[in-house]
């Protein structure tokens, strides 16, 4: 019973929690949060089960409410999004777990924050699972609306960033709808698989070309790809501190997955202009990688530095799409998984530092490793992974990306990968220098305990991210095998 309905249960569990969270918070302050934590944990367990099912039995097609497929909404779980769903629910769980430490004193706001966080997770899970282009829009908007709210909860600067993001995000959603309208007009279907078949049969190149002109900016804005990234740095910086790992680590990846679905699963190789579209994407990625890293170098606020580094890192993923061979696509998805834990981990660390010392200024990080050894350890590991030092996750995604680019004789992409890692090294070693070498500044502890450097709910995410970064690095061959189950025959 549970097994056959897994795809929808994973999404429903946090949704139900979100619906009852406010009510429960009215009864007792922490009750609502407890239910959300539990619900996301349930999702996590089920998503692992689902991943096992997909690996053993191939893709799952699930028709919601048993409506026949091209008419009803379908959830399609192949090995790609099964892995991504595990990633979302794991980081979502860790975020919900640690967010309690940053909660607002007012019980209503506290309850609302948890409700919205659960909704955000619902939206992300839905975006990953859905096989219907309009359903994707709905989940995209659920994600974005909850993200606006969570960013607005981060103080007065957050409200302004959230408003700007809302305007830009709505433009993106509108552009996406126009793209959908064009494709629906040409094919008369909204189901991804059905649409791909119909597009295959007829001559729809012009429609696809026009649609992709709307879709690239739409997804570009949502994933903060250069040059559509303007809203991102301030939004990531000022978001509600407890939710930053999820917002900055995971939220940008789902539009990227959607972009992949459009260009490789729906349009596919029969779209004659796909090469050119991917070349445009490649140019954006190349400039974005350099621009993001260079901007990150000048920031003294660590959150802003990490936000700009995300602009560069998301370009790694789109670079993989631009190369388009199965190996490069596998690299892009590996980077999606790895980067979520790296960036999430870095934000968990900055959150922990903020929790303990109330600062996010890089200059206050002097000799932090003595006071917070685990946090310092994860910061270092994640930084090394961002640079791409083996055996961390970042190295191996770079390896597959570069290998794919070499296979296509795209030497410029390899050169840019190398330069970008070196620029990453320039600012991440600044962080490492601060952590280990610079004299500690006079920051005061707000929280102290004799046994632990941090509360357990903050330590667990840090330890899990540490293990995940190393684990994804060392088990990358297995992960790529799983990814390849869906990528074989997809690429250019």
């Amino acid at each position, binding site marked *: 019973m549970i097994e056959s309905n897994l795809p929808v249960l994973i999404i429903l569990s946090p949704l139900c929690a979100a619906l009852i969270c406010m009510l429960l918070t009215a009864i007792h302050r922490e009750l609502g949060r407890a239910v959300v934590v539990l619900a996301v944990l349930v999702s996590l367990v089920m998503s692992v089960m689902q991943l096992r099912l997909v690996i053993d039995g191939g893709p799952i097609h699930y028709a919601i409410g048993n409506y026949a497929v091209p008419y009803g909404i379908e959830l399609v779980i192949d090995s790609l999004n099964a892995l991504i769903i595990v990633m979302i629910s794991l980081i979502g769980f860790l975020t919900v777990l640690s967010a309690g430490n940053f909660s607002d004193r007012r019980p209503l706001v506290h309850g609302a924050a948890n409700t919205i966080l659960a909704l955000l997770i619902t939206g992300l899970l839905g975006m990953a699972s859905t096989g219907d282009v309009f359903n994707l829009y709905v989940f995209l908007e659920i994600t974005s609306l909850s993200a606006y709210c969570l960013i607005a909860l981060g103080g007065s600067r957050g409200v302004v960033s959230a408003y700007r993001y809302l305007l830009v995000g709505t433009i993106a959603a509108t552009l996406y709808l126009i793209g959908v309208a064009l494709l629906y007009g040409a094919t008369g279907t909204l189901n991804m698989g059905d649409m791909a078949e119909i597009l295959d049969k007829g001559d729809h190149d012009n429609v696809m070309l026009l649609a992709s002109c709307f879709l690239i900016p739409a997804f570009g804005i949502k994933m903060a790809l250069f040059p559509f990234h303007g809203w991102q740095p301030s939004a990531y910086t000022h978001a509600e501190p407890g939710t930053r790992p999820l917002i900055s680590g995971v939220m940008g990846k789902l539009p990227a997955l959607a972009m992949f679905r459009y260009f490789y699963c729906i349009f596919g190789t029969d779209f004659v202009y796909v090469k050119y579209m991917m070349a445009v994407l490649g140019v954006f990625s190349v400039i974005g990688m350099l621009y993001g890293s260079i901007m990150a170098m000048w920031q003294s606020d660590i959150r802003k530095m990490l936000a700009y580094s995300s602009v560069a890192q998301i370009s790694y993923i789109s670079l993989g799409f631009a190369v388009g061979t199965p190996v490069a696509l596998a690299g892009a998805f590996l980077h999606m998984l790895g980067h979520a834990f790296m960036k999430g981990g870095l934000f968990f660390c900055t959150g922990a530092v903020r929790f303990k010392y109330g600062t996010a200024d890089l200059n206050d990080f002097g000799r932090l490793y003595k006071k917070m050894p685990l946090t310092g350890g994860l910061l270092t590991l994640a930084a090394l992974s961002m640079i791409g*030092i*083996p055996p961390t996750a970042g*190295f191996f995604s770079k390896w*597959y990306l570069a*290998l794919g*680019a070499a296979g296509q004789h795209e030497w410029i992409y390899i050169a840019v990968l190398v330069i970008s890692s070196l620029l990453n090294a320039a600012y991440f*070693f600044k962080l490492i220098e601060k952590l280990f070498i610079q004299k500690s500044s006079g920051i005061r502890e707000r929280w102290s305990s004799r046994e632990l450097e941090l509360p357990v709910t903050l330590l667990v995410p840090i330890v899990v991210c540490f293990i995940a970064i190393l684990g994804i690095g060392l088990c990358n061959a297995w992960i*790529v095998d799983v990814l390849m189950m869906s990528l074989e025959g997809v690429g250019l």
Partner: protein
Amino acid sequence: MSFNWLSWLPLEYRPLCAVLVSLCASGLIYVLGEHVHRNLREGITLSAAVIKIILVYSLIPAALAGNEVKLELFRIVKGVSFALSVDPAGMVFACVAATLWLLTSVYSIGYMRGHGEENQTGYFAAFAMCLSAATGLCFAANLLTFFIFFEVLTVATYPLVVHYRDDEAVASGRKYLAYTLISGQIFFAAIVIVYAVSGTMDFKPGGFLTADMLPMPWALIVFFMMVGAGIVKAGVMPLHSWLPAAMVAPTPVSALLHAVAVVKAGAFCTLRVVLYVFGPELAKDCGGAQLLAWMAVFTIIVSSFIAMRKTNLKARLAFSTVGQLSYIVLGICILTPFSTAGALYHIVAHAFMKITLFMAAGAIFVTTHKKDITEMVGLGRRMPVTMGAFAAASIGIAGFPFFAGFVSKANIIFGAVEAGQPLFVATLIASALLALAYLMPVVLIAFKKEVDNPDFREFGEANPRMLVPLVLAAVLSAVLGIAPNLGLHLFDLSLMAGNSIFDPLM
């Protein structure tokens, strides 16, 4: 030597254990270091060093017999496995690194305590990490495994370079990172290209690349992209300047950098790339080997002259290292069996001699706080053993017979003669004289008879924890000169490596 009692541990797992033992030691030291007594912490280092020596030595018979010892552990990326294997060339370097780890560890304990250094835990942890990476380098069976250890070594050395955590240390740390990371990333790009064109990564004596995989201009470009990482670490000019800058670190670190692991890893990387990836034929045909050889010649001569002008003892030794490492690079690039064997043996010889010199410099510094050569007048009378060892090692570096340096240089010269390169022969001989010219003055100043320097009245000989390893290293470098095959058969291994590359049938 017999290692039958170790037979419960299968041969192919021993390289892995040799890597893991120092990795575990590093982790243990980092986690426990601040919480346990320092003697226990140093106990971890020493016991790991002893276990590692046993493990590495126990592999020698297999390597000598030419047995295939290979362990494919898991797939590191799709299509390439994490593989460790034992071959003569790697064995030579592994023996050196393992032996000298023990010596430097004992010495470090004396130095760090004698000097009252801070952050000793981090120091010993990073040191063990470096050794783990260096051992991994020796046994890596394919390029990717090699690269992983290479980068780990790069990163693990960084905390050692910035050990003092002052502005100077930070500056040289940045310089070190700039040089090694840039060259490392370019190496990475080249590895990707090599894998894309050849579809294999396994090291093969004589190389696995052929001219039709990489057409001419590409071959040269990829050659230098790969060799670049090696020669940056080995300090070949004009890419050497991080090495003298890194002299701000404590002396045992310099000893490690110069003698045990880091620069040797660079030389070893050059060896693997030139002879096991490209192979003599392609290296010669693309013109890379000749260019590299001339860079080495340039470095040998120029660095000797620079060394003469340095009055800081450690800086002088640093430039001596730059020159000596280029011997190895030159030996590799001459591309004959003898020169390759000589180059490999020079890794051994130079390691023992240079570590003696650095340990002596460190012992002088800890005991008298003198860094400058001009201040060392009359030091020999106070520290006769230290300075005696220094003198012996200096003569060895110059390549006098009955010292290890002679064996290696003689072989490189044989190789050069065989290859018909009289200019290389002349360079090697001239540089021997130059080495004498920059190292002997130190000895002569120290043993000046007529002066009785008042600075040194209160000092005696160095602390025995520093003195013993130092004398041991000096003795070993003499012993290896008289009987190059003693115990470990290092010379036979070098010859085997040379022959296997140039005559795969042998």
